[in-house]
């Protein structure tokens, strides 16, 4: 089934039924995941989904959309009729100008890896067994491991009435492991995750040993008082902050709706001068590399933060035309992103590395913490980028340059602007990891506020 042909056909059918413009996105998502806990696979799943998202315009600016999980001819006809009938009863949208005009797109074949596409259930089971066995062999105090190993193939296409015809394929895989160790004095928990378009990047033994070591090193965690600490964040923790930069600040939709922390502050020194972040949409060094965005416009590089100065908003076609500017290629694909589908977001952030080693960051710490990752983080004040969440897995308390002991789960409540507004040092290239929304090194900040404690 040729996705671009289906998309074009849907657009033609919509035009034939009276729409002034139409845009169709088609997807084939072949997704497989092997999940394990307590050293055994407990869920093993696979699904194949076809999806058509159709958006139509009637009378110049009356919009309607529909989605259907089938690309059969009869389904397309049903989708077109439904979208048109919705558009006909809508009121005009004065902010809608047009769907996007075509811009040449350079293919990105590197985003598709045959090796990833061909991973079988047996391969995933072998990878999981490798991790489980390696962790158990690492130390006799290791009890069990849990995690997931997933590989997806996505083919998608975007077509519209103005001549956009974009199609691409990509593969994505991730493997993660949580390992628990216990000597009777308090369980330790280590975590490691790797993401790539190419499963060849996964070294299962390294992944397993990393989590197992952290599990053993985080046994017997102790409570620390609430208050402010210097904080060293592993990349997975840094990515929590970078993801909120998008939702709460750099999305043009957040700005236009009035709750962005960047309101009237583009061009201002909002972050520490050591911080430079570029969203690199085509870079295979980021996890979500793609040749084009959800509008079918080319993705590229956009500097978000330059030496601590906030420089640019992320636009899709709709928000760009509303502001009288050009799209920056940040429309989300019109499938699977739920609430955030209508928000342009920077999903390929690259945080410029510094030259610090984590060991040096620890040595320079007077009273601080070293955090693996953060959990269940949500905004309290969007306009001030205040968020709250918890630490998770192996975290340690540092005093006078030495790791003193692992720490129990702590709750933090703090502003991303303040956290990243006073950076001590940024990790060197050897600390870089590819996370869900950013490729980033470790970062050490001067102050991070804990406001609560848990019991484990």
């Amino acid at each position, binding site marked *: 089934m040729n996705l671009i042909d289906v998309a074009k056909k849907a657009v033609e059918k919509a035009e034939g039924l009276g729409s002034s413009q139409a845009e169709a996105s088609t997807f084939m998502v072949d997704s497989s*995941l092997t999940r394990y806990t307590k050293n055994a696979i407990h869920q093993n799943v696979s699904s194949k989904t076809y999806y058509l998202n159709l958006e139509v315009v009637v009378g110049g600016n009356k919009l309607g959309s529909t989605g259907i*999980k089938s690309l059969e001819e009869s389904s397309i006809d049903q989708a077109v009729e439904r979208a048109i009938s919705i558009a006909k009863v809508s009121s005009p949208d004065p902010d809608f100008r047009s769907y996007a005009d075509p811009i040449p797109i350079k293919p990105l074949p590197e985003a598709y890896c045959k090796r990833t596409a061909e991973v079988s259930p047996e391969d995933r*089971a072998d990878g999981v067994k490798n991790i*489980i066995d390696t962790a158990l062999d690492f130390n006799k105090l290791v009890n069990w491991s849990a995690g*997931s190993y997933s590989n997806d193939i996505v083919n998608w296409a975007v077509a519209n009435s103005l001549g956009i015809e974009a199609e691409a394929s990509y593969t994505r895989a991730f493997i993660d492991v949580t390992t628990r160790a216990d000597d009777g004095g308090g369980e330790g928990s280590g975590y490691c995750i790797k993401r790539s378009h190419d499963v060849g990047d996964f070294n299962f033994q390294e992944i397993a040993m990393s989590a197992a070591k952290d599990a053993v090193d985080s046994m017997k965690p102790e409570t620390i008082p609430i208050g402010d600490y210097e904080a060293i964040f592993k990349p997975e923790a840094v990515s929590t902050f970078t993801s909120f930069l998008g939702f709460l600040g750099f999305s043009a939709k957040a700005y236009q*709706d009035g709750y962005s922390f960047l309101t009237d502050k583009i061009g201002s020194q909002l972050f520490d001068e050591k911080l430079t972040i570029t969203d690199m949409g085509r870079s295979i060094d980021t996890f979500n590399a793609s040749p084009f965005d959800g509008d079918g416009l080319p993705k590229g590089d956009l500097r978000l933060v330059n030496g601590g100065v906030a420089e640019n908003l992320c636009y899709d076609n709709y928000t760009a035309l509303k502001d009288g500017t050009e799209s920056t290629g940040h429309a989300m694909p019109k499938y699977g992103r739920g609430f955030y589908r209508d928000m342009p977001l920077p999903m390929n952030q690259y945080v410029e590395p510094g030259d610090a080693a984590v060991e040096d960051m620890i040595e320079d710490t007077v009273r601080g913490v070293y955090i693996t990752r953060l959990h269940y983080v949500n905004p*309290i004040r969007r306009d001030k980028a205040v968020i709250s969440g918890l630490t*998770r897995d192996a975290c340690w308390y540092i005093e006078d340059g030495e790791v003193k002991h692992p720490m129990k789960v702590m709750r933090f409540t703090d502003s991303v602007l303040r956290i990243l507004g006073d950076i001590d040092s940024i990790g060197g290239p050897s600390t870089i990891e590819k996370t869900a929304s950013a490729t980033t090194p470790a970062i050490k900040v001067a102050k991070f506020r804990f*406001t609560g404690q848990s*019991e484990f």
Partner: protein
Amino acid sequence: MLMRKELADFGLDTAASLGASYADVRFVDGEQRLVSVRNGRPDRISHTSESGYGVRVIVDNGWGFAGSYGPSKEDVKETVEKAVKLAKASSTTAKGAVTLAPTKVVDDRFESSIKVDPLTVPLEDVLELLISADEAFREASPHSRTTTGRIHSRMEDKYIATSEGSRIEQRIVFCGGQGQGYVMDRGLVQRRTYEINPLTRGFEYILEHDLQGMARKAGKEAEQLLSAEPCPTEIRNDLILDDPHMYLQIHETIGHGSELDRVLGTEVDLAGMSFLTPDKLGIFRYGSDHVNFVADPTIPDGLGTYGYDDEGVPARKVYLVKDGIFVGYQSSRETAAQLGIEGSSAGMRAATPVDLPIVRMNNICLEPGDWKSDEILEDTREGILMRTTKMWSVDQRRLNFQFGCEIGWKVEGGELTDVLRDPTYTGISYEFWRSLDATAKDDWKLYGTTGCGKGRPGQSIYVGHGAARTRIKDVRIGITGRM
């Protein structure tokens, strides 16, 4: 329908021929409509549909699941083969046989009770309701910056067939709505929401509400927030909760905390586990004597109301906490057998045809107490009443939580006095519920969310919660960090 039955039987036969000791096939036709408005005019209006199925099998000692949107005989064969292959791969790490708690074999049908199908209500009528409410908010709040509203409706037509002989048809319909406004003045941004809690009822339920009146009230409160004092920081005080925010408190603490699959470690890699380990069953004090939590898919009209779960287990009411003591879990046939408890709680649900059924909330409710809701307020000498969730967060064992609400009021001498903005509160779940000293009876109602996330791959499903006005003593309030 005959087509689905034939395909399901074919799927089960194919699974058996390939060595499956158990199999189930679940067909789902789903339809969903989202009508939303923004700043007084239609925004996103979408109407989506899907028709697919999922196959679960146990082969050797492993589970496999595969799903597809192509219901033909060839596709079913391919999907079953895929599920069997996955099960065989799973069994290479198995530590023992998969055991399922027994369940009745049934041949039955269940349907949500609706008068007006929300998916067929003319769009113009739905838009008129939403736009007039949106206008009412903006009229009441001159500082409105962005206003939105939406009405969400969904229908699922399911057919479940198991290798044990069960054949179940279910038709679930729900609808609900929400409106929201962001207001701004002198750099301060606030938000106020009004909600028609989603229920498994038809559009007649939407029309029972005065949406314009609700919007107008929300707009006035939004204006009040712009000149309100911030919630006092780092105080301890009595807390009264009495609106949809209650559902999220229940949801995040006892709701997810009592899911047995989490307890046994199936969600470690994402959402975490639970501190409610089996050694605590029957003896751990989770709440005060006034606290009774149930998982009950038999309550009429709840978002989590159904006749059978997605394993074909008949809906039944299960106590999770009784008179404050932790006594039960939400479970599946497998997790119930693993723990040796009597039968599944009928908690297995899948969000889409191609999602694996996992243990999910249905209607998790705080049972009504003895008080009248007015009495709780009048009895409170000093406290804070908070409404409408703005922020939520809980640790991976469901102990430390923090919530932020849109609005609060001081309670002084049994009356609501000053409005407070940006109220937050935090605590440890069981300490919080142990401090509950009053819950009402007369204002008990069902709330719910259409977006409870769990699982890998991620699923988002609709779940219900019931609660009344409730007072909790001595809560830590006003956590602002570095605002």
